[in-house]
């Protein structure tokens, strides 16, 4: 199992390298030069590394979220919408806290509201799944569209500063400190202590799957819901719980964007992190370290796109992300099995 996972990761990286070489060559540039430029702009400097961490933080949150659902056999495609709604909720609360509220109260409160908002948004698919068996892929995708519209609606109706598509600034007590305050070399980069919180959540969720009754049962439900139902495990409720938790963690990704970076929420902030989480979860394979490495990889690609933007379009890196995802997905038995379940109603008699 372990070696199969390693194999598909290596396959993904090899495919990405080949695609990179090919694309850069098509633009008439030297792959070697661009690779070194890409390195300099990311891990080659403290600022670059900080930026990679900054980009990787929301991906780690959403990656953990998608992975949690995936282990219960669910595809949470809705992290995108869950994050948008959580961002709006956290930013709005953060802007309206009294000036006298200390950080020790303000930060946990805003984090809690972000989680609850994400869970609420995932709650609709969760209830639809538990009550009516509606497939979560369809309902979470639809909730993404609804989230877009709701955020726009909220901005138009008093949530945004008049005439803009952004919320007011949150109070300074609710902001998360940047890493540059602790490590001066990160100066200028947007990385914040949100990465520590993301790591903590990753470790906590990993332990939760091993040691907590609920986590353990979720994995069993993901592997064979029929046997679990036969042994009186409440399968629909467990699936709903998995989606709620997944939504809550996806919502936490706004710690990196709203609380740790901008200090407010604006239209499009954090967009793409929800879908990026799918890729991180596929590559991370249910292990905290795997998820972290995957988030860093995609963070590197995003930041790298900016670094080479002068010579080739940064969209080249988006292509690479797609190549990695496709290659890993094809090599991943878990995904193949899930796809087969989704497509194949023709079960053996």
């Amino acid at each position, binding site marked *: 199992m372990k070696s199969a996972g390693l194999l598909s990761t290596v396959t993904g990286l090899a495919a990405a390298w080949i695609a990179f070489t090919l694309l850069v060559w098509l633009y008439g540039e030297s792959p070697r030069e661009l690779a070194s430029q890409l390195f300099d702009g990311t891990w080659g400097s403290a600022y670059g590394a900080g930026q990679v961490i900054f980009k990787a933080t929301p991906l780690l949150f959403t990656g953990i979220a998608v992975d949690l659902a995936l282990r219960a056999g669910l595809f949470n495609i809705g992290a995108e919408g869950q994050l948008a709604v959580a961002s709006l909720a956290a930013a709005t609360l953060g802007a309206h806290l009294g000036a006298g509220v200390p950080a020790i109260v303000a930060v946990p409160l805003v984090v809690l509201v972000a989680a609850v908002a994400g869970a609420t948004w995932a709650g609709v698919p969760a209830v639809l799944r538990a009550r009516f068996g509606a497939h979560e892929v369809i309902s979470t995708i639809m909730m993404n569209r609804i989230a877009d519209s709701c955020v726009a609606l909220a901005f138009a109706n008093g949530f945004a500063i008049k005439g803009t598509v952004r919320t007011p600034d949150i109070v300074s007590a609710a902001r998360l400190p940047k890493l540059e305050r602790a490590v001066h070399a990160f100066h200028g980069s947007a990385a914040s202590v949100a990465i520590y919180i993301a790591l903590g959540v990753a470790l906590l969720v990993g332990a939760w799957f091993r040691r907590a009754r609920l986590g353990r049962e979720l994995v*069993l439900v993901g592997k*064979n819901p029929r*046997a*679990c139902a036969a042994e009186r*495990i409440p399968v629909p409720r467990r699936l709903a719980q998995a989606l709620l938790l997944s939504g809550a963690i996806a919502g936490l990704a706004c710690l990196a964007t709203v609380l740790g970076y901008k200090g407010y929420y604006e239209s499009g902030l954090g967009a793409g992190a929800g879908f990026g989480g799918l890729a991180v979860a596929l590559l991370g394979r249910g292990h905290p370290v795997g998820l972290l490495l995957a988030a860093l990889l995609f963070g590197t690609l995003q930041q790298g796109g900016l670094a080479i933007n002068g010579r080739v379009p940064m969209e080249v890196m988006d292509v690479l992300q797609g190549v990695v995802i496709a290659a890993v997905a094809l090599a991943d038995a878990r995904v193949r099995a899930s796809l087969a379940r989704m497509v194949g109603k023709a079960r*053996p*008699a």
Partner: protein
Amino acid sequence: MPTLRLEKLTKSYGDVRAVREASLAFEPGKIHAVVGENGAGKSTLLQMDAGIVVPDAGEVYVDDARLAPHTAAEAIARGVGMVQQHFALIGVFTALENVMLGAEPMTSFGRLDDARARSKIGEVAREIGAELPLDALVETLGVGDRQRLEIARALYRDARVLVLDEPTAVLTPAEAQALYATLRRLAEAGRAIVVVTHKLDEVRDHADVVTVVRRGEIVVTRPLKRGDDDEVRALSAAIMGREAPEPIARRATEAGDVALRVDGVRLGRALRSVSLCVRAGEIVGIAGVDGNGQRELVRVLAGIEEADAGSVEGGPVSVVHEDRRDEGLVLDATVADNLVLGELDRFARFGVLDGDAFDREVAARLASAGIVPPDPTLPARSLSGGNQQKVVMARAIARTRLAARVLVVAHPTRGVDLGASRALHEQLLDAASRGIAVLVVSADLHELRALCDRILVMARGAIVADMPPTATDRDLGAAMLGAPAA
């Protein structure tokens, strides 16, 4: 000249050597039985014959030409057909579509040539000597029909070697007789028939040649004296490597108060009106042809399905479901997780598991069930069928030591070898002697006679007869076919 020949086949899974240097030949015109305990390597051996499993070393020859590449497709193309224990049919397709699937005849315009398929299947059906309900959906067919369909599918692809894995495990005695008549006819037409089975009576009555496999090695291959009772004893000694144990004897126990009372239970069209009661310490059997409502009754007793009408009193009920791979086990989870499936709340404090208590309970169940290998960290999928059944039984039995007062077991030894069957039966008897009310659903009349105080017969969703364990096959069989209760 042998049609199928194996040369020194060897296959290991991790550290476990499933088959070691097995050489064997299957000849046309013969019914060749392969017997051995669970995990002895029979299935692996035959899956290598059919190209499904690739051997680490050794070769398979069809008509003296090597099977290369070693794939199922190549094996089928060369005339080796396999009928698996778990049928590989598509329920929502018709019988005809299932037989054609993957080998569809086409008209010159690229359309399916139904007529040609039909006429070819007609020939096959004549050879089998049975009508095939070609236009019925497979999910509406009984087990016997499905099996004939699997055989027809292999013959439709011109199989000259037909390998059947536990073909009679799900059949009634009458259906099993009919199957062997069919196989004999196919053998006489020049095909090589290979049957893997646990039922030595069948081997004695129907096989020409027998091969005994023990711990991955072939112990002996020899012709059989058909119908000779000494053969059964000799074979079971060869299978186990020692003398066969005495058959279990039901100890007479004092039955207590009624512990399970089912009254007029109806469920859709599956259960018309089921009433029965089981007393504490009593073992009651339910005999019947598969698909007459046994599965639904078990599901109602387990509380998974709500009856449309009627009542179930008594419990709590501990259940062993019919399909261990689908409903009994999470195959990709560890043996440990499976042994306590659904009981995690017992080991949790504030939602966190007490690892020590969990491990202690798992170790106790693992040891008392005699599961091989005794490693709780292995995935359940890696165990042999018999050991998987031990896991499911161990879980159900353990619950009768906790709260459960009633034990409902569906097909406790289906596809399980002699040694393991005996251990499982002893556990059921032991549960009864502790005052548990036991209800056993089985298609194996030997098993029911050996275990039960009473045998109820189920037909078309109702209990149609209540007989003593001394009832003859004939009487039970007549009741199973739905003759009105006397």
